[in-house]
């Protein structure tokens, strides 16, 4: 009797698993969100978006749906846990297949009753501290210009670059503002390309951050380095200097010598004024230089 029961139980379990396999394998594709739904989602995002917010979209959204987001700066990449803990994040998600990694949303805004699209707003956890601003994540807020000589702006890097980021009209194609993933000190690192130019200054301008935080001052950590490859293939290559300036004053200088490694300095900045990272080198040959910077409200 009990043996029969065991067999029946085994049969039942296997049948359930078989049905689960069958259902997941054979269910049809769902229809794509309509342009109106995506447009409505975009309106909600724009209405709820504050300076410094990060917008993420579900990796399940098709380019046929994403086209209706226009120029909205959004990606399907899951922000790092530090960023998730410290920044407000707006996620364009699917109600029935939610994107992993964000916890519980503060607000869930439905597009309409029939739509699978939802907009979720995640607030940072007050118990955690993290960057208010990150050069890589917030590249859209950063302005780049080229001065030649120092003080004379010869190009504002606002032209759309075909392979991404922004290029600097009238300047060589290797001067541009874009995110890169480069091997520095033996590891792949996400950073901002900051190739110096002979007899000139590359200026990266971080806007005032007062709208993104209630703090009046923040600590800005600046890390720089040359790619391992550039150092190995350029014996005698020149050093690259990154000067941090605010209100016309030099706060610190980070020097990346022609030696494998990451070089960093942390300075206190105020949130009411912009900050400039001014990059120079006596000789720009193969100076594949990259910058990372983040501002957060912690003690020096």
């Amino acid at each position, binding site marked *: 009797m009990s043996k029969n029961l065991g067999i029946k139980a085994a049969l039942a379990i296997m049948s359930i698993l078989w049905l689960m396999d069958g259902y997941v394998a054979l269910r049809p594709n769902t229809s794509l969100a309509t342009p109106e739904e995506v447009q409505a989602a975009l309106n909600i995002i724009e209405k709820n978006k504050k300076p410094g917010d990060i917008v993420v979209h579900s990796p399940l959204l098709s380019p046929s749906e994403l086209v209706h987001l226009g120029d909205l700066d959004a990606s399907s990449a899951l922000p790092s846990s530090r960023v998730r803990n410290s920044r407000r994040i707006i996620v364009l998600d699917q109600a029935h297949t939610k994107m*992993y990694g964000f916890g519980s949303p503060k607000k869930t805004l439905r597009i309409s009753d029939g739509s699978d699209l939802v907009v979720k707003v995640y607030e940072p956890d007050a118990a955690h501290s993290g960057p208010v601003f990150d050069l890589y994540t917030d590249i859209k807020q950063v302005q780049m210009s080229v001065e030649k000589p120092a003080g004379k702006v010869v190009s504002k890097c606002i032209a759309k670059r075909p392979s991404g980021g922004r290029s600097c009209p009238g300047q060589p194609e290797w001067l541009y503002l874009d995110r890169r993933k480069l091997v520095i000190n033996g590891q792949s690192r996400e950073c901002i390309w900051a190739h110096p130019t002979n007899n000139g200054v590359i200026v990266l301008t971080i806007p005032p951050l007062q709208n993104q935080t209630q703090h009046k001052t923040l600590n800005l950590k600046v890390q720089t380095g040359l790619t391992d490859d550039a150092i190995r293939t350029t014996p005698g290559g020149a050093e690259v200097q990154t000067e941090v300036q605010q209100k016309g004053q030099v706060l610190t200088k980070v020097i990346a010598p022609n030696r494998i490694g990451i070089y960093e300095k942390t300075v206190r900045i105020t949130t009411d004024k912009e900050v400039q990272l001014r990059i120079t080198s006596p000789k720009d040959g193969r100076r594949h230089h990259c910058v990372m910077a983040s501002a957060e409200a912690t003690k020096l």
Partner: protein
Amino acid sequence: MSALRGSLAIIAVYFVCLCFTHKNAALTDDDDYYIPAGISYVAWLGKAISFQPEAYKKKTIDAAYKINKEHPPFAKYVFGLSHFSLRGLLGPSDSARFGTILFSSLIVGLLCFLAVFHFETNSGLRIAAFSSIMLLALPRFNLHSHVATLDVPVAAMYFFAATMVLYAERSKKAAIWAGPVFGLATATKLNAPFLLLAYIPFVILTRVSELKNSTLSPRATTIPRGVRLIPFPAALLSMATLGPLVFFAIWPWMWTDTVARVKEYIAFHANHYGIHFLYFGQVHTDAPYAPWHAPFVMAATTIPLVTSAFAIFAVIRAWPMIQSRLTKSSQIDDKQRRRSDLLLFLILNSLTTISLVAFAGTPIYGGEKLFMPFFPFWCFLAGIGLNNLYEELQAVMRNKALKLALVGLFCSSGFFYQWRYFGYELSQYNALVGGVKGATALGFERQYYDLAYRDLVEWLSKNGPKNLKVHFLPNNWEYVRTYKWYRRGEDLRSDIVVVNNERAADWVIITHERRFARYSKDLSRYRQKRILFEKRIDSTPIWTLFEAKTIDNPR
């Protein structure tokens, strides 16, 4: 049905099924490494066996074997031989890839042998059939069974060596042959020597139990219990002596500068470069690599649930038998001992093949690719589990045809996935994570290996304008390599080229792969471009074809 005829029928069905689907399997980014290497090695072999004097000169050997010298040659010989034998019929790449079908079919032959040897003919054949069907129905294993890479070959040779050492428990001839087979396995890929991680504990567990339980000769009883030695298995001796001899004998690259080249070989794998791997939304490239549980999670989320459930069922059912074998060895008959040895060995190998990837400290990437030797053991256990259920069903179901139909349904659940993910096998995930849709939302990668999908090749050939230039994002250079094989094999129209320069491309194909840092940016850049075609599986975009610029000369 005789064991031989039954086994041949099972092997034939498996082999024919793989042959039928061979032309649908996408090229991977590794094919372009191993196919040319196989061609080069076999060309040298041709010179060597015809005793051309220059063949044995260091310069000639080095020139032939320098290609892909970081991996041993055995599987590549098979690729090369099948390329030269079948290229007229299958084209340059599919002919070489046919060699992997042979390796995969070898696994099924070994499953039949082991099942029939350890169970009686009828049960053995049933187990072999169930296991083979479940192996055939594993979408990911199925794809790997078609590609000219070393993963299924090493799974086959590992399983072959495991079969020999297990058979060696009851055959002296097998003990001697275990060494050469182990040598061939080691000459296939670096995973093979790790068979010892399962074999040595197996030897210790079974021998210690026999020492404890056997009636000792009067002389042996004079030796204190604590210092009695475990009898050294002959198979292990053969593996330690003949194994390395075979390994070096078939790899001419190692014939000169041996110490330096062995060091180089080991160093390459010990310090393997990082490969991006997306796991729960985080990209792991460099140390620290993906966490240890990643291979277990990948196995749990990609093997059809029914298959894993039967394997677990078999382990649970086997445990009391294994315990008796290890604690009361003298009280059980040979039939039971034989079966429990098999079950213990299958469990140990299932554990070690996957744990090796989890705990070795080397990069974890590519989903299930790195632990391919795990699957034959797991499917064998699943086949045993299913057969257990079949035999137990006697109590509740008398009709044999009905019973067979029921278990047939159970072992076929993987075919649902095969049907849905046909040509896209590496995108398959099971119901545990909600298919590829759930897995993608969870932060797993929806594809890897830069698969050059056949239906895309067909679509481009059919719909592409004359002299079409295409570019792939985010990883174009891999497709430059694979598409040249399609062109050579006339699968792709000869005027279609994959260009290195994105700006020169008429059409751009984005493969949706979040592990690449540039993917999001590429997706944003093309957001406003016209979409010509898109492949979605389970409501999940796999690739999208964009019009990069207007073409003036439509076909």
